């Protein structure tokens, strides 16, 4: 099986462990990733603030490149990229006459032939394979954190349920983890304010991390590089805001799956985290 792959900018930089772990897991489950040729940035959380048309044109260019390469489906592991891509796709499907205008802007035909999927959606298709290959169960209590962009707005992404989503929990359970039932699965972490309003991010992340620890989670599991960097890289600020010293690690779901499949931690980029991935009691998976 093959699928189009749009890593996005963060996965080449600050979140390269996500890229590494997605690739490692996909290889293990037999899914070939075909990178969209010469892809550009999707505009992330900046383009739409300054110009709506730009925020549609950049993702449309990516999808048009994919279309030209004969792809019909593109996996965007980064939740922010996914959100921009599917948002543009959905808007252009709703207003088909805008397709002509956008094609002019991006200088190539955009027809809407390429569908966008997120990493949970793709892994869900392989849930049984993943379960079968989970030789070293990740026997930890985990708090699955979805963030905003995977499930909202529900009419656009049309994936899982908008409040209290389940797919990540189910996948984590398939590899031996025990997902906790907790109320902060989709509370915002502060997203793009990481640099400009670190104080706010610290406050929002504080609620999330604190709740997970209170409910005895041993790890936070995420599927979004922005959430990851806020929960992981901004931990010093978060701890300062909370007045606590919480050392709960933040793993990408693909890392959790990868570890359970027995993939070498280094290949999954475990060493790249700011909050070290270390657990108190020994388990089947080590980091």
């Amino acid at each position, binding site marked *: 099986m093959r699928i189009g792959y749009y890593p996005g900018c963060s996965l080449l930089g600050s979140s390269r462990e996500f890229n590494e772990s997605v690739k490692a897991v996909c290889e293990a489950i037999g899914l070939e990733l075909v990178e969209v040729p010469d892809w550009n940035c999707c505009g992330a959380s900046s383009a739409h603030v300054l110009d709506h048309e730009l925020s549609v044109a950049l993702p449309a260019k990516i999808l048009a490149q994919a279309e030209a390469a004969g792809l019909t489906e593109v996996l965007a592991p980064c939740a922010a990229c996914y959100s921009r891509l599917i948002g543009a796709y959905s808007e252009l499907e709703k207003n088909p006459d805008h397709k002509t205008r956008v094609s002019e802007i991006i200088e190539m035909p955009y027809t809407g032939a390429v569908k966008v999927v997120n990493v949970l959606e793709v892994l869900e298709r392989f849930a049984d394979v993943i379960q079968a290959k989970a030789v070293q169960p990740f026997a930890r209590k985990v708090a699955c954190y979805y963030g*905003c962009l995977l499930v909202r707005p529900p009419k656009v992404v049309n994936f899982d349920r908008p409040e209290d989503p389940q797919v990540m929990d189910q996948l984590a359970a398939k590899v031996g983890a025990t997902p906790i039932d907790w109320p902060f699965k989709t509370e915002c972490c502060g997203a793009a304010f990481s640099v*400009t309003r670190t104080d*706010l991010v610290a406050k929002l992340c504080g609620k999330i991390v604190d709740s997970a620890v209170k409910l005895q989670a041993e790890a936070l599991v995420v599927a979004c590089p922005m959430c990851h960097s806020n929960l992981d890289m901004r931990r010093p600020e978060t701890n300062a805001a909370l007045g606590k010293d919480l050392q709960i690690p933040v793993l990408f779901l693909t890392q959790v799956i990868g570890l359970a499949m027995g993939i070498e931690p280094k290949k999954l980029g475990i060493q790249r985290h700011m909050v070290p991935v270390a657990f108190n009691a020994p388990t089947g998976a080590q980091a």
Partner: protein
Amino acid sequence: MSSASHHAPHADTLAARVKAATGISLAQCYQCGKCAAGCPVSEEMDLTPCQVLRLLQYGQDKYDERAMRSAGIWLCLSCETCSTRCPQEVEIPKIMDVVRAEALKRGIAHPKSKDILAFHRAFLDSVEQTGRLYEIGLVANYKLRSGHFLKDVMLAPKMYVRGKLGLLPHMIKGTAAVKRIFKRTLGSKG
């Protein structure tokens, strides 16, 4: 011929601009406050989301201006919590985009928007130049634009050690095409 034109909002109000740009009618909002109740940052806002919508509902310059001058609109994270739960299905983040763009155009954006804008501008600069985001370039550019030179200086070495910072930008083949996209969209609107 059609009677629809009777009900079109006054042409140059912000509400009319919102309608034209997004198709959303401000009249849909019935001020239940559910957006403000769920918004992760509404406590930080000088105007909560429902208040911004309320001001726009008047269709009067002084209220439009009050909305555009607020700091709160710059705090919206576009997390979509409000629109997901809105009983009237108002897509508030899209409205926020329009209000911010108008505030910038008229030069009345709140001073606190400076840093946030600097970040977004720096981000887009990077994309315009290389086609992709160049994170180091972004941080350097942001610092230049915002003046926060010492921000996060302790973070960079840690990131570097963990292989999280690429020192060179990724150039794509289609940079020229991307630049033209910027010109046709952002550029054409000043």
